[in-house]
Protein backbone atom coordinates (compact mmCIF):
# COMPACT_ATOMS: atom_id res chain seq x y z
CA UNK A 1 0.00 0.00 0.00
CA UNK A 2 1.29 3.41 -0.94
CA UNK A 3 -0.18 4.94 2.21
CA UNK A 4 2.15 4.59 5.17
CA UNK A 5 1.12 5.19 8.77
CA UNK A 6 3.72 7.02 10.84
CA UNK A 7 2.13 6.34 14.16
CA UNK A 8 5.33 5.00 15.72
CA UNK A 9 7.27 8.18 14.84
CA UNK A 10 4.58 10.46 16.28
CA UNK A 11 4.38 8.29 19.38
CA UNK A 12 8.13 8.57 19.96
CA UNK A 13 7.96 12.37 19.49
CA UNK A 14 5.12 12.61 22.03
CA UNK A 15 6.80 10.09 24.35
CA UNK A 16 3.59 8.13 24.52
CA UNK A 17 3.18 4.36 24.60
CA UNK A 18 0.83 2.48 22.33
CA UNK A 19 -1.13 1.25 25.34
CA UNK A 20 -1.59 4.76 26.67
CA UNK A 21 -2.78 6.02 23.28
CA UNK A 22 -5.15 3.08 22.96
CA UNK A 23 -6.56 3.92 26.37
CA UNK A 24 -7.04 7.58 25.52
CA UNK A 25 -8.49 7.03 22.07
CA UNK A 26 -10.72 4.13 22.99
CA UNK A 27 -9.36 1.67 20.47
CA UNK A 28 -7.97 -1.68 21.49
CA UNK A 29 -4.19 -2.08 21.50
CA UNK A 30 -4.59 -4.92 19.00
CA UNK A 31 -6.40 -2.66 16.52
CA UNK A 32 -3.96 0.17 17.08
CA UNK A 33 -1.02 -2.10 16.39
CA UNK A 34 -2.72 -3.25 13.16
CA UNK A 35 -2.76 0.43 12.24
CA UNK A 36 0.85 0.97 13.34
CA UNK A 37 2.21 -1.99 11.41
CA UNK A 38 0.44 -0.88 8.24
CA UNK A 39 -1.88 -3.85 7.96
CA UNK A 40 -5.02 -1.71 8.19
CA UNK A 41 -7.13 -1.36 5.05
CA UNK A 42 -9.07 1.70 6.16
CA UNK A 43 -9.26 4.24 8.96
CA UNK A 44 -12.53 5.70 10.17
CA UNK A 45 -12.64 9.49 10.32
CA UNK A 46 -13.78 9.18 13.93
CA UNK A 47 -10.61 7.20 14.76
CA UNK A 48 -8.45 9.70 12.90
CA UNK A 49 -10.19 12.52 14.75
CA UNK A 50 -9.51 10.91 18.12
CA UNK A 51 -5.88 10.14 17.21
CA UNK A 52 -5.21 13.70 16.06
CA UNK A 53 -6.85 15.12 19.18
CA UNK A 54 -4.90 12.95 21.60
CA UNK A 55 -1.59 13.28 19.75
CA UNK A 56 -2.20 16.98 18.99
CA UNK A 57 -1.23 16.58 15.38
CA UNK A 58 -2.66 16.76 11.87
CA UNK A 59 -3.73 13.78 9.76
CA UNK A 60 -0.78 14.58 7.51
CA UNK A 61 1.59 13.91 10.41
CA UNK A 62 0.18 10.41 10.73
CA UNK A 63 -0.27 9.44 7.08
CA UNK A 64 2.22 9.67 4.24
CA UNK A 65 1.74 8.77 0.63
CA UNK A 66 4.65 6.99 -0.97
CA UNK A 67 4.20 6.61 -4.74
CA UNK A 68 4.73 3.05 -5.83
CA UNK A 69 3.34 0.45 -8.17
CA UNK A 70 -0.45 0.53 -8.26
CA UNK A 71 -2.09 -2.17 -6.21
CA UNK A 72 -5.22 -4.07 -7.07
CA UNK A 73 -8.07 -2.49 -5.17
CA UNK A 74 -9.88 -5.62 -4.14
CA UNK A 75 -7.03 -8.04 -3.68
CA UNK A 76 -7.70 -10.88 -1.28
CA UNK A 77 -4.04 -11.32 -0.41
CA UNK A 78 -3.19 -11.41 3.25
Amino acid at each position, binding site marked *: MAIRVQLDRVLVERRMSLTELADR*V*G*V*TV*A*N*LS*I*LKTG*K*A*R*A*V*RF*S*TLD*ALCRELECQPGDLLVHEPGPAEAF*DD*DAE
Partner: protein
Amino acid sequence: MRLPTLRSTPKPAGAHNPDFLSSVRGLGPGSVSSVLKIALDVAYVLLALITGVLVLLLIAAVFIPLDNVNVTVSGDSGGRQLPLTRMLLLFGLGAVTAYFGGFMLILRSLRRIFRTLTIGDPFHPQNVRRLRQIGLILAVVTGGVWAAQSFVAARLAPGVMEPQGIGELLTPIFSVLIVFVLAEVFREGARLRRESELTI
Protein backbone atom coordinates in the same frame (compact mmCIF):
# COMPACT_ATOMS: atom_id res chain seq x y z
CA MET B 1 -15.17 13.26 24.19
CA ARG B 2 -14.44 9.57 24.46
CA LEU B 3 -15.38 7.23 21.69
CA PRO B 4 -16.62 4.09 23.32
CA THR B 5 -18.11 2.89 20.05
CA LEU B 6 -14.65 2.58 18.57
CA ARG B 7 -13.70 -0.13 20.98
CA SER B 8 -13.96 -3.36 19.11
CA THR B 9 -16.79 -5.47 20.46
CA PRO B 10 -15.59 -8.49 22.38
CA LYS B 11 -15.81 -11.74 20.45
CA PRO B 12 -18.95 -13.65 21.37
CA ALA B 13 -18.44 -16.63 23.60
CA GLY B 14 -17.41 -19.66 21.61
CA ALA B 15 -18.96 -23.08 21.36
CA HIS B 16 -17.15 -24.08 24.53
CA ASN B 17 -19.58 -22.06 26.52
CA PRO B 18 -22.66 -24.21 27.20
CA ASP B 19 -24.86 -21.14 27.47
CA PHE B 20 -23.78 -19.66 24.19
CA LEU B 21 -27.07 -20.40 22.42
CA SER B 22 -29.11 -18.36 24.83
CA SER B 23 -26.68 -15.46 24.62
CA VAL B 24 -27.09 -15.01 20.88
CA ARG B 25 -29.96 -12.95 19.59
CA GLY B 26 -32.63 -14.86 17.71
CA LEU B 27 -31.53 -18.21 19.07
CA GLY B 28 -33.74 -18.42 22.10
CA PRO B 29 -36.00 -21.39 22.72
CA GLY B 30 -38.76 -21.66 20.13
CA SER B 31 -36.99 -19.50 17.52
CA VAL B 32 -36.54 -20.65 13.94
CA SER B 33 -32.82 -21.13 14.50
CA SER B 34 -33.24 -23.34 17.55
CA VAL B 35 -35.77 -25.52 15.68
CA LEU B 36 -33.34 -25.70 12.75
CA LYS B 37 -30.51 -26.68 15.05
CA ILE B 38 -32.56 -29.53 16.54
CA ALA B 39 -33.64 -30.68 13.07
CA LEU B 40 -30.03 -30.66 11.85
CA ASP B 41 -28.81 -32.57 14.90
CA VAL B 42 -31.54 -35.21 14.69
CA ALA B 43 -31.11 -35.67 10.94
CA TYR B 44 -27.35 -35.92 11.30
CA VAL B 45 -27.52 -38.56 14.02
CA LEU B 46 -30.12 -40.57 12.07
CA LEU B 47 -28.09 -40.41 8.85
CA ALA B 48 -24.90 -41.36 10.70
CA LEU B 49 -26.68 -44.39 12.19
CA ILE B 50 -28.16 -45.45 8.83
CA THR B 51 -24.81 -45.02 7.08
CA GLY B 52 -23.07 -47.04 9.79
CA VAL B 53 -25.55 -49.90 9.50
CA LEU B 54 -25.28 -49.83 5.70
CA VAL B 55 -21.49 -49.97 5.81
CA LEU B 56 -21.71 -53.01 8.10
CA LEU B 57 -24.22 -54.61 5.70
CA LEU B 58 -21.92 -53.85 2.77
CA ILE B 59 -19.04 -55.61 4.52
CA ALA B 60 -21.32 -58.54 5.43
CA ALA B 61 -22.53 -58.78 1.82
CA VAL B 62 -19.05 -59.78 0.72
CA PHE B 63 -19.24 -62.93 2.82
CA ILE B 64 -22.86 -64.12 2.95
CA PRO B 65 -23.79 -67.03 0.64
CA LEU B 66 -26.15 -66.09 -2.17
CA ASP B 67 -27.24 -69.46 -3.58
CA ASN B 68 -30.72 -69.62 -5.01
CA VAL B 69 -31.73 -66.11 -3.98
CA ASN B 70 -33.70 -64.18 -6.54
CA VAL B 71 -34.97 -60.63 -6.69
CA THR B 72 -38.23 -59.86 -8.40
CA VAL B 73 -38.39 -56.70 -10.42
CA SER B 74 -42.01 -55.76 -10.87
CA GLY B 75 -43.94 -52.84 -12.16
CA ASP B 76 -47.39 -52.06 -13.51
CA SER B 77 -46.73 -53.88 -16.74
CA GLY B 78 -45.56 -57.08 -15.14
CA GLY B 79 -42.34 -58.29 -13.63
CA ARG B 80 -39.43 -60.64 -13.97
CA GLN B 81 -37.05 -62.51 -11.78
CA LEU B 82 -33.32 -61.84 -11.61
CA PRO B 83 -30.75 -64.02 -9.89
CA LEU B 84 -29.21 -62.02 -7.06
CA THR B 85 -25.53 -61.99 -7.91
CA ARG B 86 -22.90 -60.68 -5.55
CA MET B 87 -22.13 -57.89 -7.98
CA LEU B 88 -25.77 -56.83 -8.01
CA LEU B 89 -26.01 -56.91 -4.22
CA LEU B 90 -22.80 -54.94 -3.78
CA PHE B 91 -23.92 -52.42 -6.40
CA GLY B 92 -27.27 -51.92 -4.68
CA LEU B 93 -25.90 -51.66 -1.17
CA GLY B 94 -22.99 -49.52 -2.29
CA ALA B 95 -25.31 -47.10 -4.06
CA VAL B 96 -27.59 -46.75 -1.04
CA THR B 97 -24.61 -46.37 1.32
CA ALA B 98 -23.09 -43.67 -0.88
CA TYR B 99 -26.45 -41.89 -1.03
CA PHE B 100 -26.87 -41.74 2.74
CA GLY B 101 -23.17 -41.10 3.31
CA GLY B 102 -23.30 -38.15 0.91
CA PHE B 103 -26.21 -36.62 2.74
CA MET B 104 -24.47 -37.22 6.05
CA LEU B 105 -21.43 -35.27 4.79
CA ILE B 106 -23.71 -32.46 3.62
CA LEU B 107 -25.35 -32.31 7.04
CA ARG B 108 -21.97 -32.31 8.74
CA SER B 109 -20.97 -29.21 6.76
CA LEU B 110 -24.37 -27.63 7.40
CA ARG B 111 -24.02 -28.14 11.13
CA ARG B 112 -20.57 -26.54 11.08
CA ILE B 113 -21.94 -23.58 9.13
CA PHE B 114 -24.74 -23.33 11.65
CA ARG B 115 -22.25 -23.38 14.52
CA THR B 116 -20.45 -20.36 13.04
CA LEU B 117 -23.84 -18.64 12.89
CA THR B 118 -24.54 -19.33 16.55
CA ILE B 119 -21.21 -17.81 17.57
CA GLY B 120 -22.07 -14.75 15.48
CA ASP B 121 -19.61 -15.17 12.64
CA PRO B 122 -21.49 -16.65 9.66
CA PHE B 123 -19.24 -15.11 7.02
CA HIS B 124 -16.21 -17.05 8.13
CA PRO B 125 -14.01 -17.89 5.10
CA GLN B 126 -14.32 -21.59 5.97
CA ASN B 127 -18.05 -21.39 5.23
CA VAL B 128 -17.34 -20.60 1.58
CA ARG B 129 -15.35 -23.82 1.33
CA ARG B 130 -18.08 -25.74 3.17
CA LEU B 131 -20.80 -24.44 0.88
CA ARG B 132 -18.79 -25.38 -2.20
CA GLN B 133 -18.26 -28.82 -0.68
CA ILE B 134 -22.01 -29.15 -0.13
CA GLY B 135 -22.67 -28.17 -3.75
CA LEU B 136 -20.13 -30.68 -4.98
CA ILE B 137 -21.46 -33.53 -2.83
CA LEU B 138 -25.03 -32.65 -3.84
CA ALA B 139 -23.99 -32.76 -7.49
CA VAL B 140 -22.27 -36.13 -7.06
CA VAL B 141 -25.13 -37.67 -5.05
CA THR B 142 -27.99 -36.45 -7.22
CA GLY B 143 -26.03 -37.17 -10.40
CA GLY B 144 -25.23 -40.61 -9.03
CA VAL B 145 -28.89 -41.30 -8.27
CA TRP B 146 -29.76 -40.32 -11.82
CA ALA B 147 -27.01 -42.51 -13.29
CA ALA B 148 -27.93 -45.47 -11.08
CA GLN B 149 -31.60 -45.20 -12.01
CA SER B 150 -30.68 -44.98 -15.67
CA PHE B 151 -28.54 -48.08 -15.28
CA VAL B 152 -31.29 -50.02 -13.51
CA ALA B 153 -33.89 -48.94 -16.04
CA ALA B 154 -31.75 -49.85 -19.01
CA ARG B 155 -30.02 -53.04 -17.86
CA LEU B 156 -31.73 -54.65 -14.90
CA ALA B 157 -35.37 -53.86 -15.47
CA PRO B 158 -35.91 -52.94 -19.10
CA GLY B 159 -39.56 -52.37 -19.83
CA VAL B 160 -40.47 -52.35 -16.15
CA MET B 161 -38.92 -49.04 -15.16
CA GLU B 162 -39.29 -45.91 -17.22
CA PRO B 163 -35.97 -44.90 -18.77
CA GLN B 164 -34.47 -41.76 -17.22
CA GLY B 165 -34.54 -38.61 -19.31
CA ILE B 166 -32.60 -35.38 -19.13
CA GLY B 167 -35.68 -33.78 -17.57
CA GLU B 168 -35.06 -35.64 -14.33
CA LEU B 169 -31.67 -33.91 -14.09
CA LEU B 170 -33.17 -30.42 -14.05
CA THR B 171 -34.06 -30.32 -10.36
CA PRO B 172 -30.62 -31.54 -9.19
CA ILE B 173 -28.85 -29.07 -11.47
CA PHE B 174 -31.07 -26.30 -10.16
CA SER B 175 -30.40 -27.12 -6.50
CA VAL B 176 -26.65 -27.42 -7.08
CA LEU B 177 -26.69 -24.05 -8.85
CA ILE B 178 -28.45 -22.44 -5.87
CA VAL B 179 -25.80 -23.77 -3.49
CA PHE B 180 -22.95 -22.51 -5.68
CA VAL B 181 -24.55 -19.07 -5.99
CA LEU B 182 -24.89 -18.98 -2.20
CA ALA B 183 -21.21 -19.92 -1.89
CA GLU B 184 -20.30 -16.94 -4.08
CA VAL B 185 -22.48 -14.67 -1.94
CA PHE B 186 -20.67 -15.94 1.14
CA ARG B 187 -17.32 -15.35 -0.57
CA GLU B 188 -18.24 -11.69 -0.98
CA GLY B 189 -19.46 -11.67 2.62
CA ALA B 190 -16.16 -13.09 3.81
CA ARG B 191 -14.30 -10.41 1.84
CA LEU B 192 -16.38 -7.66 3.43
CA ARG B 193 -15.83 -9.21 6.85
CA ARG B 194 -12.06 -9.12 6.31
CA GLU B 195 -12.30 -5.57 5.07
CA SER B 196 -14.21 -4.44 8.16
CA GLU B 197 -11.85 -6.35 10.43
CA LEU B 198 -8.96 -4.29 9.07
CA THR B 199 -10.83 -1.01 9.36
CA ILE B 200 -9.64 0.76 12.45
